């Protein structure tokens, strides 16, 4: 039987020291809703578990015009947090689609980022707000724009010695929505998801973000589609054209949840609906 060590640090300094010691052989345990399933099925065989539950990283605060979200904030907390509801409601919308109540009580926002699934429910909403991720290691901290964080399915620029500490969310203007399509409404991975944010001045779009989930190896920002909207009056024809462009930028695959063909059709409809909703048409 393999020997696994368990550590439950109570300070960030202690946690990053453990990660520096154990490197690739350590598994970082937060809510465990992804990690423990992988352990149960022997998909990973770490020699150490570093549990972050004792670090008190479950918080949402407003600081210097930004929201600061602790990486250990549970999805259930995001759903009931007043600051999130008032200033970043698109994140609460995404939280409501995530798993089911008994998953949301444990799953954390940092875990959703660290798992780095192309289907990660919380990621598109963070991407439309240009969030920054603060990573900590025994050498110090660094800030990575979310746009540069993901490098492939399950892969990020986070090294084995780093932990995700906080998410900094600038309170960008405009209206944002999140939409998710799955086989049912709860307890599913998305077939396709999207978050969009439009800043409108009268009927004219000043700034736009369009992000697709489950449509590429990483959550995908559709910059050509965004560029189509800037400075334009947004009408139904432009929305349809822009949704088609967004999906054209993606590279959906066939998998057990849906075919690439279906994802492209459904994704186009989902982006069009999201854009029409935020543009008020």
């Amino acid at each position, binding site marked *: 039987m393999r*020997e*696994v*060590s*368990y550590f*439950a640090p109570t300070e960030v300094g202690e946690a990053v020291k453990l990660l520096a010691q154990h490197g690739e052989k350590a598994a970082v*345990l937060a809510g*465990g*809703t992804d990690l*423990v*399933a992988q*352990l*149960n*099925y022997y998909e990973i065989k770490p020699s150490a*578990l570093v*549990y972050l*539950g004792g670090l008190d990283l479950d918080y949402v605060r407003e600081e210097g015009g930004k929201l600061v979200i602790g990486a250990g904030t549970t999805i*259930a907390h995001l759903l009931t947090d007043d600051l999130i509801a008032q200033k970043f409601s698109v994140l609460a919308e995404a939280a409501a689609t995530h*798993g*089911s*109540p*008994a*998953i949301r*009580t*444990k799953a954390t926002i940092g875990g959703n980022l660290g798992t780095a699934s192309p289907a990660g429910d919380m990621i598109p909403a963070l991407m439309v707000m240009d969030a920054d991720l603060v990573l900590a290691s025994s050498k110090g901290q660094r800030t990575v724009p979310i746009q540069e964080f993901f490098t492939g399915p399950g892969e990020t620029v986070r090294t084995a010695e780093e932990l995700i500490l906080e998410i900094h969310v600038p309170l960008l203007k405009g209206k944002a929505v999140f939409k998710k399509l799955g086989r*049912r*409404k*709860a*307890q599913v991975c998305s077939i396709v998801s999207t978050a969009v944010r439009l800043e409108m001045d009268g009927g004219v779009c000043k700034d736009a973000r369009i992000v697709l989930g489950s449509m590429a190896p990483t959550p995908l920002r559709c910059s050509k589609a965004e560029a189509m909207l800037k400075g334009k009056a947004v009408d139904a024809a432009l929305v349809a054209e822009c949704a088609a462009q967004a999906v054209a930028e993606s590279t959906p695959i066939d998998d057990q949840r849906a075919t690439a063909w279906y994802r492209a059709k459904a994704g186009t409809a989902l982006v069009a609906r999201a854009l029409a909703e935020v543009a008020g048409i």
Partner: protein
Amino acid sequence: MKQILSFILNGSPVDVIVTPTETLLDVLREKLGVTGPKRGCDDGDCGTCTVLLDGEPVRSCLTIALTVAGREVLTVEGLSTDGDLHPLQKAFHEHGAFQCGFCTPGMLMSAKALLDHNPTPSRTEIREYMSGNLCRCGSYEEIIEAIQVVAAGEYAPSGGKE
């Protein structure tokens, strides 16, 4: 690396020797003989292993046992008091809210968490809250009905709502 885990199980303190990769479900079923929580999928999808951790529903199959140190765990075994079934248990029984019964321990714990948070849920709220608990026999309608009658106070002991 074996360690001693101490926590409160159904109101009583327990100490048990565990390994770091054992889940709360492993420890409950295989070391403490608490077999109410069932092993369905071991993946968090089915809900039959649901227990309450400090009053909140969690998947015991996705909970590393050592993370519950010092905390309170409630399983279906802890629902009844002095041999008296909990109102939800009575309602599930009398309304036929199961056939095979495999999902019932998880259903009851989720339903208790729902009513603790929201004593008068709408039908939609019940369906949403119970969405992570699967019933292969398809007793969903009876399960919703049982929760509704408890919310209406029908099985409340000594008149008041539980």
